[in-house]
């Protein structure tokens, strides 16, 4: 075998092997378990049953699902709005300290998330730092608490997931050739037009990757809503964990996992199809 094929063969098969052993197995197991029945002492009873799916066709579960999607989508949007200007500015800076500045974004995240969320409580509580500043500025007369509100949940989730948006955006912006933007400007395009017609399309892959890496984990970040939202906002991640551990109803937990995964795959498929159509339409126009 020559050098050419060997590298290709090794890189593909190595990764596929890893993925099929450690990735496929859990997936299949989840799929399989979702069609079994619950057993009090042995966790699962090895007989076919749709009980798990029947349990989750329930208004309560749909509400939890909807609530999770809403929180995750809101967080993704907030992360994008905060991260884009930041990543853009950082990636286009010409300084030796660029890497240091990027590392500084990551360092807070190497602290345990539980400890970090406790630190956020210091900010948001009555007589916390935010409230103290607001009182000092004279914006409010009495100390206010932001704890146990939806806003607190959004702040917490954004805080936890921000780097997952910043890093892919940074690497996407970094690759844009500055000349492209200059050329657009030279041709008389305003800053907004340049942004929408040149910068944004070029960074689209980074945006998609970032959104995916924020949105999906956000569905499972249950400790943030628990601590900052007062445990009143159940997330799907929470629901699934409770099914597995508290109710010990593995089939229901697995069924919820399967439904969630299929839903997300469908979303991505729709996104892919609509993008394909757009591309085709775009090509026709030109």
């Amino acid at each position, binding site marked *: 075998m020559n050098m050419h094929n060997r590298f290709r063969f090794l890189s593909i098969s190595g990764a596929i092997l890893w993925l099929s052993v450690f990735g496929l197995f859990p997936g299949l197991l989840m799929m399989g378990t979702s069609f079994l029945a*619950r057993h*009090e*002492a042995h*966790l699962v009873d090895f007989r076919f049953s749709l009980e798990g799916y029947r*349990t989750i066709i*329930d*208004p*309560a*579960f749909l*509400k*939890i699902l909807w*609530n999770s999607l809403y929180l995750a989508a809101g967080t993704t949007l907030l992360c994008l709005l905060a991260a884009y200007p930041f990543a853009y500015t950082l990636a286009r800076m010409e300084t030796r300290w660029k890497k240091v500045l990027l590392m500084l974004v990551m360092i807070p995240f190497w602290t345990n998330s539980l400890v970090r969320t406790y630190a956020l*409580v210091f900010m948001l*509580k*009555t*007589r916390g730092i935010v409230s103290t500043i607001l009182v000092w500025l004279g914006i409010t007369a009495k100390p206010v*608490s932001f*704890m*146990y509100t939806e806003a607190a949940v959004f702040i917490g989730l954004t805080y936890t997931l921000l780097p997952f948006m910043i890093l892919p955006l940074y690497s996407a912006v970094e690759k844009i050739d500055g000349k492209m933007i200059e050329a657009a400007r030279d041709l008389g395009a305003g800053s907004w037009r340049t942004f929408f017609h040149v910068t944004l399309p070029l960074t689209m892959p980074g945006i998609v990757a970032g959104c995916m890496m924020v949105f999906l984990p956000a569905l499972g970040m249950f400790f943030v809503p*628990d*601590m900052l939202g*007062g*445990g*009143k*906002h*159940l997330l799907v991640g929470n*629901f699934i964990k*409770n*099914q*597995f*551990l*508290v*109710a*010990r*109803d593995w089939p229901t937990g697995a069924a919820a996992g399967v439904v969630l995964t299929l839903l997300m795959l469908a979303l991505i498929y729709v996104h892919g199809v609509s993008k394909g159509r757009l591309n085709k339409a775009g090509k026709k126009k030109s």
Partner: protein
Amino acid sequence: MKKVITLAIALLLALATAGLVRAESSRTVYVYNWTEYIPEGVIDQFTKETGIKVVYATYESNEAMYAKLKVMNSRGFDVIFPSSYFVNKMGKEGMLLPIDKSKLNNFKNMDSRHLNHSFDPGNKYSVPYTWGGTGILANPERVGPMPEKWSDLWDSRFKGTLLLQDDLREVFGMALKKRGYSLNDTNPDHIREAYEDLVALMPSVRTFNSDSPKIPFLNEEVAAGMIWNGEAHVAMGELDTLQFVWPEEGAIFWMDCMCIPAGARNVDEAYAFINFLLRPEVAATMVREWGYATPNMAAIPLLDEATRNDPAIFPPISVMEKSEFQNDIGEAITLYEKYWNKLKANQ
């Protein structure tokens, strides 16, 4: 560049081998417990006296510990510390070894009132370690007169100020007790009634928290709620306007026990370890540090007057008679779970 890569690879290999190679001592006991759930210095003392090395692993909930041991066929650990209803469940499912009390000469220190509970009749599988209960903590300065019963919490003056445990057994247990039912009730009608009561309570609930319920009290985010007595004890030490009561309907009790999993390899070492923890000095330190009661009678004289007579640490007999320990409720847990999801989803 080449050098840097070689160096990096060497470093990675060194890290990997450091992870793989662990010295095995001749006699070891594998303990599975909460972080810092054994007073400082006790483990070192044990190793010094017996020469048995202690390997200490931690879990974050009974449920998670159960799931892991179940998948591992009860192997891997020699001493575990499940709470009341998990002793019940794991015993029933053959996951625990029966305890041979003749191997524990400190077992005689146990207060007989804390033996033979419904979750493990005759203490076949468990040796009590520490125990406590859920009662009411409130700040009368903020919410007026101190509540005395669970049902007082339904009063409208608590609107938006309550803390409930983030644990369905505790919350439903409270609601069942309020109605005069057992907190281990499996009757679907009773559970539904409890659920309906809880729906009515929701507008008063500011937060669910069972990680560290004292923190919202200390941050003055909540003014009343259900809390473990040990947590309450600590909170009252930090903020003296707080008061604790054992509700009239009866409290929810738990007991953490020492057990030996069925697949334990170092059974003799496990007995030695359990026996060591039954020493009065160890038990007394635990009470002082965490504010939870000890079932160890020999430890009581070692405590000072105030601690010994603190009703928040050692509930009086009258409270004990009305209260219950949590038991395994079998299949009914799925019904609880269903109502729990409904309760939370309809926020």
